[in-house]
């Protein structure tokens, strides 16, 4: 009886030993696979984290190997250092988590730095813009006021009043537009605007009617398809066309600013799009200006180029609608004959 009992005990012990050694072997193989994988993947973690993780895996491999060999009775020496390895492994687990936290903190600091730098640059940009453009506007208003005072007692020059008042009105409009554009541009990046289905032809017609009502010196002709054309946009869509048309009027030396708007469907990279072309008979845009016209920055202000933020705002709004804008010559190679603004926006079917 005792012999059978001893044999049973031995059998159970052998089975247990085999089971545990198999478990250790599987753990060893899995850890080795992870080690090889991490060793090959150089960009999965940052440099420090990867180094610590590789060392951690080495310790785990050694620990599993030691456990496995312990059951096969190959060596006792490994068993003695196994416990010390485990202590080092636990410490490396701590270092692994700590390096992640440190990396996260560094990234957060860098992000905050960039955010503040961007905010500072933006404030500087608006400050310089205000200093330069508003100063120009007030100078014009001051000159107009001076002329009015001079002509007040001169009955022959009374006719000039109409012209001076017109200049003053234009300058006040320019100032109002500048403030409005700065407000819109500063808010563009702040909030995620909700885009809705808008008929682009209807919007352009509204802008056209409003401008024709207010101004006598423009002639706007248009060519649209019969069907309605929908795009994903918001209330700022009006500002695109208002700014482009006003830009054409402002930079025009002809008695009547002639503007022609054409809208048609196109396919761009197999995506249905709407193309809008705005032709004008203005002073035109030189090759250098074509590259910088949509990106007004600090340097432009200091170099006294550009007026207002209209085209910068247009570019930002179109970017938000996943569209694109560029400018060309009305007559190719001759910028002095006027310009064409090309806009492509994805169509919403």
């Amino acid at each position, binding site marked *: 009886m005792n012999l059978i009992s001893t044999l049973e005990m031995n059998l159970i012990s052998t089975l247990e030993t085999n089971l545990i050694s198999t*478990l250790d072997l599987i753990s060893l193989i899995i850890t080795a696979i992870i080690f090889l994988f*991490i060793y090959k993947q150089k960009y999965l973690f940052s440099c420090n984290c990867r180094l610590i993780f590789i060392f951690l895996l080495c310790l785990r491999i050694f620990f599993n190997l030691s*456990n496995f060999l312990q059951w096969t009775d190959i060596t006792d020496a490994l068993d003695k250092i196994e416990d010390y390895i485990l202590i080092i492994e636990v410490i490396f687990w701590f270092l692994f988590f700590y390096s992640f936290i440190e990396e*996260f903190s560094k990234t957060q600091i860098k992000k905050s730095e960039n955010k503040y730098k961007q905010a500072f640059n933006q404030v500087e940009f608006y400050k310089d813009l205000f200093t330069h453009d508003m100063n120009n506007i007030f100078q014009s208003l001051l000159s107009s006021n001076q002329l009015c005072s001079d002509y007040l007692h001169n009955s022959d020059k009374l006719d000039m009043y109409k012209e001076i008042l017109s200049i003053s009105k234009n300058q006040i409009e320019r100032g109002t537009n500048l403030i409005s554009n700065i407000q819109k541009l500063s808010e563009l990046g702040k909030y995620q605007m909700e885009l809705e289905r808008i008929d682009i032809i209807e919007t352009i017609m509204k802008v056209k009617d409003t401008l024709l009502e207010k101004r006598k010196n423009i002639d706007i002709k248009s060519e649209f398809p019969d069907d309605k054309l929908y795009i994903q946009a918001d209330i700022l869509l009006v500002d695109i066309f208002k700014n482009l048309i006003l830009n054409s009027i402002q930079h025009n030396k002809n008695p009547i600013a002639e503007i022609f708007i054409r809208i048609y469907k196109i396919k761009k990279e197999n995506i249905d799009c709407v193309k809008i072309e705005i032709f004008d008979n203005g002073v035109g845009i030189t090759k250098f200006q074509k590259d910088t016209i949509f990106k007004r920055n600090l340097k432009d202000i200091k170099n006294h180029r550009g007026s207002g933020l209209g085209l910068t705002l247009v570019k930002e709004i179109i970017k938000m609608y996943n569209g694109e804008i560029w400018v060309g010559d009305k007559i190719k190679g001759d910028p002095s004959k006027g310009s064409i603004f090309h806009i492509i926006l994805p169509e919403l079917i």
Partner: protein
Amino acid sequence: MIKENEIIVAIIGIGIFVFLVINYSKISKIPESKILISVFFIFLLGWIFTVIESLVLESLFNLIEHFCYIIGSFLLLFWVFKLKQKRDDDNEFN
């Protein structure tokens, strides 16, 4: 017989787990952090069972300890795989 080293490992392990709980807001920024924390927790259980096996039910707790190591290893492999998948998706998006 209880080994001193095993107790030290268990105490340090518990200490690190407390550290993870305190800094959870930062640790949670690690991609697939829940899997990684689970890996550590399972290894910690293994270390605690090593101490317990010296006191009671040696065979049973020894078996559980080794099961903890194998589950931990599988989860660690899964975490690395998920990390790689996430990185690939991010690269594709960018």
